[in-house]
């Protein structure tokens, strides 16, 4: 039997991380922004049929970049986890932090145990209840968990996008202003014509479920309102 070559753990982790980062960098980024009435999630998505942003629970949304089949598997697992918890206990017992921890654990185990790590980065947003702060959590391919306020970007160009957004972000923006800002920052960062958007909001309303997709027509009218 071939004993194989010895690879140090440091080298192994470096190789896997580099592999995952390369995969993620190929995909398009997603930004999330707090605005006056909730949280906006905006992604460049030319097709529109395959969603990157979706509903997980009453006040929780999910977004993923990277390999579609991988973040789709995780998205469904998150929905299952949330629905089972909410059914067994109470709807109030499902929290973004609990879900994000589960995602982080799962990704961490896959990163170190599987043949190849997942090439994904996830975003979990939660709309705060009655004056409680919102949560925006980023989960990386290796399970690293980051909690942010105001703005959060994930994906290959997350640093540039996030930096540019943070510079111009103001608190309690209106939805149209937030969309406009997001689109501008995307355009400046990518430096190429952008084709097609996917946007969704978590917004307090009369309904229990706060997640709402913005249809193309609505997105167009909202973004056009501020254009010169």
């Amino acid at each position, binding site marked *: 039997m071939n004993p194989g070559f010895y690879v140090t753990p440091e080298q192994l982790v470096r190789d896997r991380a580099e592999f995952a980062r390369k995969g993620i960098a190929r995909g398009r980024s997603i930004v999330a922004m707090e605005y006056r009435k909730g949280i906006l999630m905006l992604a460049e998505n030319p097709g529109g049929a395959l*969603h990157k942003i*979706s*509903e*997980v629970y009453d006040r929780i949304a999910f977004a993923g970049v990277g390999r579609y089949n991988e973040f789709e*598997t*995780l998205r*469904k*697992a*998150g*929905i*299952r*986890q949330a*629905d*089972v918890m*909410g*059914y*067994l206990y109470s709807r109030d017992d499902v929290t973004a932090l609990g879900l994000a921890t*589960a*995602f982080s*654990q*799962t990704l961490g*185990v*896959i990163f170190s*145990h599987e043949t190849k790590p997942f090439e994904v980065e996830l975003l979990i947003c939660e709309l705060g209840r009655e004056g409680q702060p919102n949560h925006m959590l980023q989960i990386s391919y290796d399970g690293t968990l980051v909690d942010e306020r105001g703005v959060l970007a994930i994906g290959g160009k997350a640093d540039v996008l996030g930096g540019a957004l943070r510079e111009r972000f103001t608190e309690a923006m209106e939805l149209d202003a937030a969309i406009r800002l997001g689109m501008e920052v995307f355009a400046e960062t990518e430096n190429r014509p952008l084709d097609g958007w996917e946007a969704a909001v978590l917004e307090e309303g009369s*309904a229990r*479920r706060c997640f709402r997709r913005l249809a193309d027509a609505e997105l167009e009218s909202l973004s056009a309102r501020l254009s010169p």
Partner: protein
Amino acid sequence: MTSPADWGLPLGAPAPGASFSDLLESLGLSPRWDVPDSPVRDLSAPEATTVLASRYSEGVVIGGDRQATEGHLIAHRRMRKVYPSDRMSAVAVAGTAGLALEMVRLFCVELEHYEKIEGAMLSLEGKANFLSRLVRSQLPLAFQGLAVVPLFAGYDPSTEQGRVYTFDVVGGRYEEHDYGAAGSGAVQARAFLRTAWQAEMTEAEAVEKVVAALVAAADVDVATGGPDLRRGILPNLAVIDSNGVREVSEDHLEEVARSSLGGSR
């Protein structure tokens, strides 16, 4: 190597993967609908009584009284029997209250779970079929006298009309052309609607007639609780049309109940 199931998040799911009740079953968490072999003789549990739904020109109205009875006693005066099951449908229940409420809870989560996983709502027909499966799954309990009979109503965007489904204890599913009812006062409620129902009713007329049918049922059936203005107990009603489901406000119901009670005196 551990299997994905051991990692915490349920990464794998039983095929076809969008059903919440199948997921619960695979996790060993599904509610128990079976009973011990020996027949249960002296088990008494509260029963929910009359629920009904009626189509009208633009949609459907579904409603129910608020009383739960246990033998000759009133177990609950303010029980809720009508629940919006998603944006476009509502479910109402009659029969063993505890089991019925669990069934409604499971049904509502199932619809939402499917919608989130698949990214699209089930068709109205699909929802009704699933509910019939839930009723059938607790058939062993029905044989012990613990039956649950739901009533399902919703707006079907594909045909642009409201639809009403009734069920029997073995899970049979029947689409009603005009109105449907379930529970102890169902016969009286149906008898009332037989003469009062009109295809071209407006929403306001449909609400009035559903409340009047509940009053008529409570008049004859002791298990059905009519509107009780002294205690402020009013029936639950929901209206479903192309804009979705919304519950009829208590203020409006009180007004309708008052005139309907006045008429029956």
